[in-house]
């Protein structure tokens, strides 16, 4: 459909959650904003292929996710940005304990396999249904459900098991995390 005023407003309205999704995926604010920009350009260039009445946020999230995955493959070998780049993107300064807990959570989230992380974020934070999340990720609903469950179990093991403060040499944690530490 053509880019009407209301469609443009709807796209703008989706930008904050697109950014949140991009940052959760990439763990890096600058990279995330580049992803969002690229997503908007793609969306606007392909606006004719958007079906009026269908789920606009899901359509935009699908574009962003696909871009992230190709981008991720490209950048794998590049040097990762310094720790804390995520925190820099936050306006509010959480209290010390809350900040520490937040950092632990963020670090644990980054250790999840990409498939599980994105499923958990789409369902647990973006508020998509399992069906929408499955459409965004191009997989079956049951696959999304099991990815979300595995993501929760791993986070739980990393964050709430004794001796897991630095996700260190705890056998249970190591067993659950599997090969993702390499």
């Amino acid at each position, binding site marked *: 459909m053509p*880019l009407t005023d209301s469609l*443009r407003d709807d*796209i*703008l309205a989706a*930008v*904050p*959650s697109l*950014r*949140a*999704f991009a*940052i*959760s995926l990439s763990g890096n*604010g600058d990279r995330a*904003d580049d992803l*969002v*920009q690229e997503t*908007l*350009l793609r969306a*606007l*260039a392909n606006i004719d292929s958007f079906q009026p009445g269908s789920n606009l946020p899901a359509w935009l999230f699908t574009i962003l996710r696909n871009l992230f995955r190709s981008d991720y493959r490209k950048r794998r070998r590049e040097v990762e940005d310094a720790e804390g780049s995520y925190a*820099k*993107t*936050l*306006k*509010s300064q959480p209290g010390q*304990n809350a900040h*520490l*807990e*937040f950092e632990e*959570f*963020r670090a644990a*989230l980054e250790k999840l396999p990409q498939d599980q992380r994105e499923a*958990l*974020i789409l369902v*647990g*934070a*973006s508020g998509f249904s399992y069906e929408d999340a499955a459409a965004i990720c191009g997989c079956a609903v049951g696959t999304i459900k099991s990815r979300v*469950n595995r993501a*929760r*179990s791993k*986070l*739980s093991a990393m*964050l*709430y*098991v*004794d001796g897991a403060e630095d996700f260190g040499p705890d056998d249970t944690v190591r067993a659950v995390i599997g090969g993702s530490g390499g």
Partner: protein
Amino acid sequence: MKDFKAQKTAAPAKQGGLNPEIQSRIGHQLRAMYDDVVRQGVPDRFAELIRKLDAPGGSSSDFGDASKTEGRD
């Protein structure tokens, strides 16, 4: 951090090997992290991008200028 650790000794899991209390804690942290970004709204950079594309005869060139977002912190 005391109550944070107390979670570790909470009752054993019911469904899917996961304690509901821990599950809700994970959900809460996930949303807190996400909403922190959502609350920042739409940076000028993106509002401008869409406005430019919408303008009559607007071209899609030269959107690489990120200077608007430098002062984020």
